[in-house]
Each structure stands twice: as C-alpha cells, then as structure tokens.
C-alpha cells in the first residue's frame, strides 16, 4: 500500500513525502521509487497524511444496548472518522466486570480492522462499592479500567484502584464528578441555566473530584487518567499538578472545545451531555489550555442513544452525543474557526492550519498511543494512516451518519475539515470519504 502525493506529518510539521504501509511496517518512499507491481496506491492529492486516530473513550453499547449501536455500526463510524483504534467503555449491560465477558467481547471485536480495546469497570456492576478483580482481569488482558458514566465516589476505593494501576501497569480512568454537587443537573450551571430555569451541574462538581484524585495520586503515583475535563478549576489543578510532578494524563472532548451552553436555548437534547457544555468563557479557556499542551489527548466520549430515548424532554433524555465520525472536523473547527474575531469568515493562512493540524495529530493519534503503550505495553497491532483535508467546509447531514444513533450536535452545522482516506495495514477502510466495505473486516 502506497500513499502518494501527500504532506506527511513528521511529529512536528508536514513535509511532502510518499509512504509505503504494510501489515507490519511503514517507510517513507524516495522520490525516484516506483511502487512494485500490484501495489495499491492511494493518491493523497496534496492533502495531509498522518497517523490514524486513537480514541481512549468510546461507548460501544455492546452488549445490551444494540438498539443504540452495534459493533458493526460502531466500527464504520470510527473508520469514517479516521480512527484505527478505540477503547470501549465498560458501562454496558451487563457491565464488563468479569473475565468471561471481557474475553468474549475482546474476541468478538477482533474481526474488525479497526481495533477495539475493551475496558473493564473499576467496581463491580459499576456500583462503586467493591473493586473488580483487577489482577485476574489484567491476566486476561484488560489494561484499561473505568467506571465511566459514573464517578468513583469512595476515595478509599479510588486509592486502591490507583495502587493496583501502578502495580499492574494499567490505566484507571475517572469520570470526575461529585454526585451530590451534580445531583439532578441537566446542563451547565451558569447564566444560561438560570435564564432557562434548567437545573445545573456546576463546574466545581468536576474540580473537587479532580483535586481529590490528584491528591491521591501524589501519594500513590498510579496511572490516573482524567476524562472529559471541562472546568476552569480543573485547568488550574492540572497546571499545579504538572508543576508539582504528580503523575496523570488528561482528556478533553471535541464538543467541549467547540460548543457552549447557549446551544441548550433551543432545548435540543442532542446537546445534553455529561459533563455539560460549559459557558463560552470556559470553552475558550479549555481551548487555550488545549493549545498550551495541558490536555494529553482528545477523546470523543462517543455516546450513541436511540432516537426514542433522545426524543424525550430535556430532563428525561439521557446524556451523551455521538462523536467518532465528526471528531476531526469538530476539533479542527474549534481550533481554527472558533476563536476571537471573525477568523471563520476570512481566509485562514496555511501555517495556522498546519499548526492546528499538527496539534490534532499529536493529541488524537500520537499521545493516546504513547500513553497506552508506555503504561500498559499495548499498542495498535498494525500501522494505520489517514489522509485529511483540513480546509474544505461542509455541513453535516443526518444521512451522512453511519452510527446507528443520530444524536449528533453537528447536524446542519458547517464544519471545517474532512477525512479522505483511512488505511490500516493492507486494508483501505475509507477512500475519498467513502467507506470501503471490504476493508472493515480484518482479512487476516
């Protein structure tokens, strides 16, 4: 497999270079080389080429919620979004808290070219009372543990889990949100929630747990991963923790970088997400912190919900939005078009776009791979590359979405950027923005 005529990401910036990809290796191709007979060639057409994306935060809905997503629809959405690898959260029905279920799921996901790493929960049934058998799960291959969807309220249990994470070399990922402070909340607590009379989730509901977890990890030095951070307090706490040498990794989502709580004014439940979309002031602070390298990764928190579940009132509709297919567009739009001034309306210069694109490759591909590998030793089995166009603009249509659920906040919204191709080893999964069905199932 050759990718020709693209500008290749070299870790920092972009250089024109062709690339040969196979199941076990990649190499740059010299100017004079011609592809061996029978080589499939992808023409990047001057667009940008970089490592395919890795999502440490996907809700697969398998098992138990196949009215919202199936493995088949999930991997297709991921492929169109340029993802070659994702971590599937454990808040399924039943919860992934046992070796048997972990193994079953791992086996069933293995047929896809897009790799799905199944996470296990931290506590049994995600009830927060008793740790799962992390040792046995780890022996069975589990390296990512999270009760995501819920916080681990009990500080003692969290500390124990962090201790195990250090001993076993696994990641413990926290959905940081104090249950009492966020009780009954529907959207960000702020001016807009006051105006609408909608019950709020304050930013400090997140920060107090971030503070607790960082303090625990100052002592324990485990592998703490803080998911979907969304508050000014968290930003301050991360800064402090970094300068104090407290180990952690952190995640921000595309939607928290692009959208704010004023979207809720129309009571569209596709904007109901947890943690909630924050104020414009916080959104901008998150974006600045993202540029300043404070967050390690972008995670989608892809959370499909069947239509009938979202067509309820704002109080009753479940939290969550789908994000795999649109993550690249949402993130590049946030970086390039959503800042002060009218940049969105004027021509943006190439160096600014390339700088933003480099940041995206670092946070959506390089860093998540690196964190996973350095902590757990697990890495993507096959090299994978994407070809992206960071400039074209288009408006997302519901019919474009291949996820089984359509709860995207971006329907009808003009976004920048598209994923043109996805290559995983010898498999082409996306070509010129279209799914290639033969590539979805792993031939080997």
């Amino acid at each position, binding site marked *: 497999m050759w990718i020709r005529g693209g500008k290749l990401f070299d870790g920092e910036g972009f250089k024109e270079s062709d690339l040969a990809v196979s199941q076990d290796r990649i190499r740059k191709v010299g100017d004079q080389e011609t592809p061996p007979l029978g080589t499939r060639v992808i023409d990047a057409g001057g667009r940008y080429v970089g490592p395919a994306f890795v999502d440490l935060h996907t809700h697969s809905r398998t098992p138990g919620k196949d009215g919202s997503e199936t493995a088949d629809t999930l991997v297709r959405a991921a492929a169109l979004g340029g993802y070659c690898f994702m971590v599937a959260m454990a808040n399924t029905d039943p919860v992934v808290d046992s070796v048997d279920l972990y193994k079953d799921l791992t086996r069933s996901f293995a047929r896809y070219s897009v790799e799905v790493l199944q996470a296990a929960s931290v506590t049994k049934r995600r009830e927060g009372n008793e740790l799962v058998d992390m040792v046995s799960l780890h022996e069975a291959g589990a390296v990512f543990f999270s009760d995501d969807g819920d916080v681990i309220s009990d500080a003692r249990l969290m500390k124990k889990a962090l201790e195990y994470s250090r001993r076993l070399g696994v990641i413990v990922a926290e959905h940081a949100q104090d249950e009492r402070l966020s009780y009954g909340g*529907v959207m960000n*607590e*702020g*001016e807009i*929630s*006051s*105006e*609408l*009379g*909608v*019950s*709020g989730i*304050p930013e400090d509901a997140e920060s107090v747990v971030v503070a607790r977890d960082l303090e625990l990890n100052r002592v324990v030095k485990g592998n703490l991963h803080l998911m979907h951070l969304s508050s000014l307090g968290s930003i301050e706490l991360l800064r402090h923790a970094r300068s104090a040498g407290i180990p952690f990794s952190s995640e921000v989502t595309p939607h928290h970088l*692009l*959208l*704010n709580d*004023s979207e809720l*004014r*129309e*009571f*569209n*439940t596709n904007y109901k997400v947890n943690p909630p979309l924050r104020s*414009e002031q916080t959104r901008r602070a998150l974006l600045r912190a993202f540029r300043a390298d404070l967050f390690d990764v972008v995670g989608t928190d892809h959370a499909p919900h069947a*239509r*009938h579940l979202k*067509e*309820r*009132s*704002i*109080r*009753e509709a479940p939290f969550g939005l789908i994000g795999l297919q649109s993550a690249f567009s949402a993130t590049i*739009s*946030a970086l390039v*078009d*959503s*800042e002060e001034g*009218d940049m*969105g*309306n004027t021509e943006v210069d190439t160096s600014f776009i390339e700088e933003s694109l480099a940041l995206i490759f670092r946070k959506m591909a390089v860093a998540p791979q690196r964190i996973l590998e350095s902590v757990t030793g697990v890495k993507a089995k096959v090299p994978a590359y994407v070809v992206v166009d960071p400039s074209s603009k288009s408006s997302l249509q519901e019919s474009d979405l291949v996820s089984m659920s359509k709860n995207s906040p971006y329907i*009808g*919204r*003009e*976004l920048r950027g598209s994923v043109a191709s996805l290559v995983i080893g010898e498999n082409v999964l996306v070509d010129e923005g279209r799914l290639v069905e033969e590539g979805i199932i792993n031939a080997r």
Partner: protein
Amino acid sequence: MTVLDDRRCRGVSGKDFLAIAELTKDKVQTLVEQAHFYQRRFSKEGVRDFGELKGQVVVSLFYENSTRTRMSFERATKLLGGDFAYFDIASSSVAKGESLRDTATVLEALGFSAVVVRHYSEGVSHQVAKWLDIPVINAGDGCHEHPSQAIGDLVTLSERFGSLKALDGLKVAFVGDVAHSRVARSVSRAVALFGASSVFVGPPEMLPPFRNMPVVYDLDEVIGEVDVLYMLRVQQERLLERETIDLASYVRRFQLNQIRSAKMRQGGVIMHPGPMNVGVEVDAYVSKSLELLAPAQVRNGVFGRMAILSSLLGGEEVA
C-alpha cells in the same frame, strides 16, 4: 464566529406561543390590547361567543396536573367559539413509554388546530413546536416559563395602574422560590418590556445560582419600596427536598402577613398566581385583602389566553 453564532436566529417563528423571552414588546402589547378588547365586550356588552375559532378544536397535552390553567384555556377557546379536547396522559400509551414526539405527532394527525402543552420539564413546548406544523402554546414548562400567565397579569396590572405605559418605572418584587418559578421568569420579562424593574426576594437557596439580577434575602428590606409584591406559590414538597431550610423559618422570614403588609407602599398591590397556600406564603388576612389582585388575575387570564389563541388561530385581527 460563524461556527457558533449563525444558528442563533432560528427557533422563534410566529407559529407558536412559547416564551415571553422570545416575544417583542409590540407583540406583547398587541396581545394585551386584544385581551382588553375581549374583556370590555365580555363585561360591558355581555358577549359570550366571539366566533373567531368556529370549527377549530384546541387540544391540551398536560403532563402535569393543573386544572386551573387547563380550564382557563378551555374557557378561552369556547368563548372564541372553538372546541376543546383533552389528551388523557394517564390512560394513554404515554404511560407505556411512548416518546414525546410520537405522542405529539398523533395529536397533529388527529387534526387538532393547536395544542396547549404543560410539562414538568423545561423546553417541552419548544420541542413539540419544532416537531409539529400546528401552533403550540406553552402552558408552563418546568421552571422555565409560563407565558400565558404573564399576558393575563399584564392585563391585570395595566387595568390596576391605568395603562401599560403606567408600568414604566414601577418596582416589582417576586417573593419565594424564584429559582424554580416559571411565573417569576415570565412575568418579570413581561413587565420589563414596559419599563418596570424587578427584584427577587428569597433565601439564597431559592434564588438562581447565577444572578445578574437584583436579589434580596430579606422581605422586610424591600417591602416598603415596591409597587407590586408578587408572592410565589411555595411548593412544599420542594421545600422538604432542601436540607437547609424548614417551613417554619421560611414562614417567619418570607410570609406576607397582616403586620408585614402594613409596611407596604400606599397604592401597592399584591399578586399571586394561585392556588394560594394560606398560612405559608400569605396569611388569612392577606388572602382576603383588597390589595390582593388574585381574583382579577384569574379572570384576566382567560382574556389573555383568548388573545393568544386568536393571534395564532384567528382570521383577521379584530382589534
């Protein structure tokens, strides 16, 4: 910022009646004047059938009980010559978990002319309005708005103070659980359109967490300075949910009683959206006070709702 801003202008169409926050002063003024017109013809000329909604059937979709509001809409519809139907939530497939959208769509398919929606969640009438082509009227959505109450209250206030113009410069105090009050949100927005200012009075745990609005924690501090004391209904079950305040302490600090009411400004009035909890937000004396406009609020609520229905469903403007 094209990404965030160019969707802002969607949403508000003339098809529905959803929130005071989405209406212009002109629109509200027209509704109030139209309500006055119905009121005059009703009481002076004895008109009981205005005929504007002949052949039309308005249906109510109430997910929260409110006999008063529903009857007010029913009365308004019938005075306009229309017919009124109820959708019975309890015995319908809603109880079996049918989605909001499916239920609403059925009402449209049944050929109703308009739907009056009351729901315990904020925004439901907005959602229904987006899904349906027929007019949707918000009869109260969670803690968000109760805009038809506000139109009726403007009729009452302009009657009492002489005109809508006379509201300019008036001070209104809303007393009680402001954070959860759709009445306070709608009425304060409505009077603001005509130059009246509002102050919100209650214990801190009953005021919205983010307040770019004047708040006072002590009723006695403002009682002598305001023209309108708007006593909100205390939801006792809500009071019980809060660990930090009990009923006795609430009554002591915020009940409008005989002694407190003596400190009211000359010419000041008391309003209440009803039904009243006598012994909680007001005492027995105040509940019978001549300054209490509650009976007029109920009466004018009907004329306000007639104006709303007429503006959405009526033919020619009659005023």
